[in-house]
């Protein structure tokens, strides 16, 4: 876990000395980095904020926790521990199960958690998404996979604040770009790791985008994913590239547990297949 804002907001260094700020850090992997030489994610807590995850799916494996957003008597959303739900009730859509399965494939040793923010009961209002995401950040998960976004401007500032909170408190938020060219959030924020899909067949290939806001491209076209009923389907979309990068973050944190979100982004950048380290150039050169 990284130094965060637990001591309250800091405006300037007035009442502490530099010695009081000492911390031990991990360095990012040496370059050239081999992401597959990183850990299998053991000891890293990954939360999938989505439609829920089917408990016991053979591709997903064990879940360490299942939570869902539900409405209280006044209709206000809040998060409850749903526990393992019966077949067919853990994930009505299949999307969250698909994402969890990809995280598990990339980082088989990680601890997986699920918080359901979409599906029956909540059909895309954004309130549930915000509630579930806030809960996940407050829990201090190491990595949060968010293969979702909202187009509603009224959630923009709340999501931006939440993404900043995650960034400063050591939760790496991996967010999916929208599949169509519309404005949506939070993937547009620089504080998150944003992901889209490339069209290559290589299931281990990921790339850095020199022209963000989408920062990384990962396998998401025609991929086989877990789905409801213990089954799998082939599908396409940024949603499925995102948990690949979330899994990579878990692998990285497993072997370098003190990395901060900005170091993780740096390590991913250096590890992307299209990034090479050359002689110092001129700023602005590609």
């Amino acid at each position, binding site marked *: 876990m990284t130094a965060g804002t637990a001591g309250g907001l800091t405006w300037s260094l007035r009442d502490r000395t530099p010695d009081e700020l000492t911390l031990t850090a991990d360095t990012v992997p040496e370059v050239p980095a081999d992401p597959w030489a990183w850990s299998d994610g053991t000891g890293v807590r990954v939360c999938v904020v989505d*439609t829920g995850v089917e408990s016991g799916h053979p591709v997903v494996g064990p879940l360490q926790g299942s939570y869902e957003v539900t409405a209280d008597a006044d209709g206000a959303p809040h998060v409850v521990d749903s526990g393992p739900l019966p077949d*067919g009730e853990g994930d*009505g*859509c*299949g*999307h969250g199960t698909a994402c969890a399965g990809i995280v598990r494939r990339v980082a088989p040793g990680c601890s997986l958690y699920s918080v359901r923010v*979409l*599906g*029956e*009961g*909540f*059909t*895309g209002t954004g309130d549930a998404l915000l509630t579930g995401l806030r809960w996940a950040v407050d829990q201090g998960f190491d990595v949060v996979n968010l293969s*979702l976004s909202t*187009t*509603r*401007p009224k959630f923009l500032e709340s999501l931006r604040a939440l993404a900043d909170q995650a960034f400063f408190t050591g939760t790496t938020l991996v967010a999916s770009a*929208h*599949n*169509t060219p*519309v404005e949506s959030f939070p993937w547009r924020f620089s504080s998150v790791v944003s992901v889209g*899909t490339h*069209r290559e067949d290589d299931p281990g290939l990921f790339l850095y985008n020199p022209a963000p806001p989408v920062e990384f491209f990962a396998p998401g*076209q*025609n991929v*086989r994913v877990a*789905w*409801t*009923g213990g*089954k*799998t*389907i*082939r*599908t*396409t*979309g940024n*949603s499925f590239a995102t948990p690949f990068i979330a899994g990579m973050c878990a692998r990285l944190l497993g072997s370098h547990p003190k990395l901060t979100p900005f170091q993780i982004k740096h390590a991913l950048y250096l590890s992307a297949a299209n990034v090479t380290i050359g002689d110092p150039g001129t700023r602005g050169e590609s």
Partner: protein
Amino acid sequence: MSQTHGLVPAASTAPATRPGSAERELLQSVVETARAIFGAAASSVLLHDEAAGELVFQAVSGEGEEFLVGSRFPAGRGLAGWVLVSGEPMVADDLREQGMFAKDVAEDTGYVPDALMAAPLAHHDRVLGVLEVLDPAEQSRSSLSELDLLALFARQAAAALAVVTERREEPAPAAVRARSLELVSALRDVLEGAPPRG
């Protein structure tokens, strides 16, 4: 189409999703065009009945067109449910091999698709429903560009649907004229009945 339809008859169609003739014509045109673009076995439009929390088949071309219109199932479930709640397009393949759809949709329609593409009917920040394409031609499957095309077409369809619906909800010109005449008449009555000014 959803993996867990739980279809119910058309009799319970709510007014919110009961289209007028212009909408019916538009939606039928949308599904027929979508089916032609993607060389598909079937296409359908499902609109979101927010009050009932359900998706309702409003237009179908191809497999199931004789009996699916008016059928409904819970929103927020299955592939169509995902598209509705997320506002994102979706493509799925190898469904038949996995036995998907076999339990519910096959029993209801007698047709088990192997592949499905779906895109939201999104207008401004609302998702009005879902446009589905079943068993598109092989070259249309699992491709980003085809998904982009379907999403674009769905957006255009949603915009057209919104325009038609808004026009339907506006008072017809004849009704406006009649109401104006009533008001003029009432005003004349008031003036004629009023004591002379002076």
